[in-house]
């Protein structure tokens, strides 16, 4: 039986914009399993990032239940989930979101410090991950001294340093040129294969959608297509296009 990492049951998310109530997610059921390399696709406003935020325990659902590794975290306050986020979930952002005043080494080291990992082990793990992402020689450089691709590699090392069960990536290649984006994707693919870490992407990028093992398409806050390796997961849902331009995916 597959290990379930994330489970969403009937999840709805409503926002209030002035006097108007906006439905971001309109009842989502989803299960994500260990080792999945999943892409959430869909046009802007379809609910990709909202879904990612709920999975990442940085936002609360308006209704429905959220499970992380079988644990129901629906009613826990977000600050109480900080330890869970620090140890079990990694984040990769479109704009890299490194701490500008810390160098590459310190940025990667930061989550280990939060969890109180001893200095010797910290250093071993940081150097190991900087090696893995090919940035050993840039260890002492701050983010503003790095290229976009290098920054995203630091962000990947930071996301992976705690050996998380799940990594959430919100448009991780959107700010990179196509060659660098492809290299980053290769790196993530390799990490996924070697560590069986679960990856969930919110993306418009056809390359990511094309390389994902599982593709979930959202529209108006609902899952309208869910396909794993060419097989549609539910008879109710349509297969998803894996090639074509952004505008087709959008």
């Amino acid at each position, binding site marked *: 039986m597959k290990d379930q990492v994330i489970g969403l049951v009937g999840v709805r998310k409503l926002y209030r914009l002035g006097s108007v109530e906006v439905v971001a997610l309109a009842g989502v059921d989803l299960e994500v399993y260990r080792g999945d390399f999943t892409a959430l696709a869909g046009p802007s406003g379809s609910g990709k990032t909202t879904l990612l935020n709920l999975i990442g325990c940085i*936002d609360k659902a308006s209704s429905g239940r959220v499970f992380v590794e079988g644990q129901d975290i629906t009613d826990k306050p977000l600050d109480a989930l900080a330890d869970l986020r*620090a140890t079990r979930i990694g984040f990769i952002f479109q704009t890299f*979101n490194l*701490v500008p005043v810390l160098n590459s080494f310190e940025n990667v080291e930061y989550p280990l410090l939060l969890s109180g990992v001893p200095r010797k082990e910290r250093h071993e793990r940081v150097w190991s991950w900087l090696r893995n992402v090919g940035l050993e020689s840039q260890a002492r450089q701050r983010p503003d001294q790095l290229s976009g691709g290098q920054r995203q590699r630091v962000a990947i090392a930071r996301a992976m340093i705690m050996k998380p069960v799940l990594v959430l990536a919100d448009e991780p290649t959107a700010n990179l040129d196509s060659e660098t984006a492809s290299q980053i994707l290769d790196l993530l693919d390799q990490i996924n294969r070697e560590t069986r870490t679960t990856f969930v992407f919110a993306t418009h990028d056809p390359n990511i959608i094309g390389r994902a093992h599982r593709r979930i398409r959202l529209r108006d806050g609902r899952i309208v297509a869910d396909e794993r390796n060419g097989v549609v997961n539910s008879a109710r849902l349509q297969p998803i296009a894996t090639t074509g331009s952004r505008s087709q995916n959008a």
Partner: protein
Amino acid sequence: MLLKISFRNVFRNRRRSLITLLVLVMGATGMILFGGYKEVNFYGLRETTIRNRLGHLQIYKLGSSTAESDKPLEYGLEDVQSIRKRIEQDPRVSMTAAQITLMGLISNGDKSETFLGTAVEPSKDARMQAQRLVSGREPTDKELDTLIVGQGLARSMKVRNGDYLTLMTTTVTGSLNAMDFQVVGTFATGVKEYDDRAVKMPLGGAQLLLNTKKIEKLLIMLKKTDETEDVAADLRILAAKEKWPVEMKSWSELATFYHQVVLIFNGIFGFIGIIVFVIVVLSVANTIMMSIFERTREIGTLMAIGTKRRRVWLMFLFEGMIIGLLGGVLGLLFGTGVAQLINLAHIQLPPPPGYTTGYPLRIMLKSSILVSAFLLAWVTATLSSIYPALRASRLRIVDALGHI
């Protein structure tokens, strides 16, 4: 790591931090300069009051403070030699000096004025440096019919050194007596109203004029003003043990004007302190708020990857603390430097109201003022970052990340 992030963030926007530091440095410097100026004034006024008029302690005949006397020196002290000898044995005592204050009419033959006289032991009085001699010399212990007059009175009486003036007053028996005194000098205390009426004469001369051997009071001068209360306590025990018929007052009980000045200066100092406090609070709070505004996404990221709200709060609190610490240290250095420069510049201030002479602008660098100035910068900067830091820690993660 939190401290490291906070420390580096202080220098991230250097211009803004520099402006905040300048506010702190100027605040601390203002406190040091005004506090030091205030202390110099307190010290000067206190020592002048003690040396000019009061001494550190005064001994009177028992009951004189509550009794209403009908005649001069009705409650005067007699035969104080043994008391003086015992008191002067105390190593903390510098000397004792007998005094009589009297008043009456002073005349040059053509014109009469009222006078306020102080009869002193000239050799002791010279050691007290009670007044500044403007011309002539001090009387000596043996020249009983000499005196020095206040600058204003000398002008009014049109006398020069060597001239004679007649002093008339009531004796201890109630009858009138007059004596001629030779003017040997003029003096100034700086207080115009006093200098217009004052004469100072040898104790023996006054006793002749008053027809008595009594003295009014015995002044006790100490080596250190700070020891006044301790010496007073010991002397009270001694007086009780020896059954001396005396009572004692310290300079502080008698120096009403000094205490009024202290009250006014402390009020002004407190007001300035509040203004500096408000400026520092607004400045530092503004800096931290701007910093939070610029780093909203960074705060969101830190919380998303597992940083608890308390740590975010601490991170910004540390920033305020570091700015305050830097501002406090720089303020101390700059403030003491400016104070030293002012002291070296020998700046002369104009006479204050009621005084005839100016005085030098000096700043006393007292440790309590330096500590207060440093704490003002440090503690205020830390306190003023509490609320902005709290706001940062309460940001919604998704809002901070800029994603909805």
